């Protein structure tokens, strides 16, 4: 099976640093990930670990102040070398993006319907046809009163309705790769399930791929084929969804899984991970989790752990397999 999978997106040693007081903050460090056609790849990890930065790097929407190295290959073409104009073409049609903060990403002075229809018009659909299509897309994403809501402005919509506008806009372009950054945080579980089934349909029927960034383990459990776990800018574990849920190898992944609220406060407080992420000005040498890791040893602080393979397709970066 491995051999027949067709590569769609490959990040090759991607690093992104942001300028901050006193130096550069290493937001993404030497990240290598491959997405194949027709798969849903979930990127999870600690808040602030660089997930949105990866999404912005792939769509080339980083602020411009950053320092970026490494390759981003989409359909085999290195996006980091594309001109602005060529990249405009890739965005939308080739790569669709749902941003983490809909209120920031929607234009406050345009109606919801107009924003979606303008996106569709970019693909040569006439203005006349675009609006009815936007309304149909609104129905697909379960927007109530689709026709009337197309005339609403973003501030007149609920948080979850705005998220549905973003999703409709992305679906309207019919991209090969969907990058969805926390796409369902404002949706109730029933509408969320319906949105997830749209993503699954796109994957199954169209062979589209999804890079799904989320903190919601339910969403991951329902949809992901593979999972990448990030911590402080690095990919620390990667494997099939079943492996990551049932045989997490990295100490961070294991501790993360345990923090999920499964009971009520009457049964005791939730487990948390002690400590916090230290500042990564001018990249440290060792494992970035070492100051919080219960298994940390001298080797962990001295140098970065190499990638180990637990079984085919399931890799992690940690020295202390034996201790765990």
């Amino acid at each position, binding site marked *: 099976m491995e051999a027949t999978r067709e590569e769609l997106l490959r990040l090759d040693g991607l690093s992104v640093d942001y300028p901050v007081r006193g130096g550069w903050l290493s937001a993404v460090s030497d990240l290598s990930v491959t997405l194949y056609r027709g798969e849903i790849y979930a990127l999870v990890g600690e*808040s602030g670990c660089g997930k949105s930065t990866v999404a912005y790097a792939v769509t080339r929407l980083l602020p411009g102040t950053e320092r970026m190295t490494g390759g981003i290959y989409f359909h085999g073409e290195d996006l980091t070398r594309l001109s602005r104009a060529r990249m405009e073409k890739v965005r939308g049609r080739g790569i669709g993006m749902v941003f983490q*903060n809909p209120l920031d990403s929607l234009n406050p002075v345009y109606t919801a319907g107009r924003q979606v229809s303008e996106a569709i018009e970019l693909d040569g659909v006439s203005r006349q046809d675009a609006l009815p299509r936007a309304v149909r897309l609104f129905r697909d994403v379960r927007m109530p009163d689709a026709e009337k809501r197309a005339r609403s402005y973003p501030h007149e919509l609920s948080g979850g309705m705005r998220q549905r506008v973003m999703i409709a806009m992305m679906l309207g372009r019919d991209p090969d790769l969907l990058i969805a950054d926390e796409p369902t945080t404002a949706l109730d579980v029933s509408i969320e399930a319906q949105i997830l089934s749209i993503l699954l349909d796109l994957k199954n029927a169209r062979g589209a791929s999804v890079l799904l960034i989320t903190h919601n383990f339910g969403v991951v459990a329902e949809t992901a084929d593979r999972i990448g776990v990030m911590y402080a800018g690095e990919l620390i574990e990667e494997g099939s969804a079943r492996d990551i849920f049932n045989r997490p190898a990295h100490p961070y992944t294991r501790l993360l899984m345990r*923090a999920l609220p499964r009971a009520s406060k009457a049964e005791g407080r939730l487990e948390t991970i002690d400590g916090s992420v230290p500042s990564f000005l001018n990249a440290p040498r060792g494992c970035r989790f070492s100051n919080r890791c219960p298994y940390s040893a001298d080797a962990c602080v001295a140098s970065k752990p190499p990638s180990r393979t637990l079984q085919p397709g399931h890799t992690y970066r940690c020295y202390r397999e034996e201790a765990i």
Partner: protein
Amino acid sequence: MPAAVGEPVIEMSGLSKHFRLSSGLFSSNKQVVRAVDDVSLTINRGEIVGLVGESGSGKTTLARVILGLTPPSASTVYVDGIDVAHPAAKDRDRLHREVAVVFQDPPGNLNPRQTALGSIARPLRLHGASRSQAYQRVRDVMASIRMDERYLQSYPHQLSGGQCQRIAIARALALEPKIMILDEPTSALDISVQAQILNLLLDLQESLSLTYLIITHDLNVVRYVSDRMAVMYLGRLMEFGPTRDVLQKPRHPYTQGLLAALPVMNPKDRARDKPVIPGDPGSLIQLPTGCRYHPRCPRATERCKSETPPLAVIARNHTAACIYPLD
């Protein structure tokens, strides 16, 4: 007089909030969105109430009315006995000090032109803290949410989604409020940071008897923190009761439908056909007659199309608005 523990602190009866909808420049038929419609709800000092419900059902609107940010269309909300829409000057100050909010949209909580430090310190300064008092308080609150002080110098666009959300929580906590209205407060946090924030909120409830209204779509969060939970659908409360009872034995068909759609927690449990609530999402513009859940309800009969069931007592401390509640 502030209410004692267990006494009502947020009260409303028959509360409504309707909006007029933009319908194009030349359209004369003004559409009305009944975002909150005839809601009666009491929250007691020292308790945590979780509010869940369909996306677009009026939860954020209800929160904004409670906060006095938008006037109700009918009836009144009392917070600590103060009519929030028409407070006397001294009462307004008290509300600002005692009631804190975390809004749903994380960056929308913060002023884009202010550093995190400025965002957290400003309300403290407005309430009379000296510069050094405010700074000390900011540092304490950052320590309590276990966030490194280096983020204090960042502007919102330099922070991740979850970092913005934690700064918004820090700002709310800094005022040492008595009541907190939290709209999706942990939606951008990973589960380990979320756990730590939820634990902190529970510690504060225990030590200071804080009162919380937590709006969320995350039923795991509601189960963990809330004492009672309310379920909203199309502008109305459909069910309200002790969290454990509502989750273990939902009485309203909407609640039951919502719980059935909960995602699995392990990929090995994936089902081919996920049960979702059938039919189209409800319209607040053309509300169904009778029970507003009837077009989608598996138990509906002719009666449900014409009779509007009120929120009625079903079991101890447990109410539901349904003609044929589950037992």
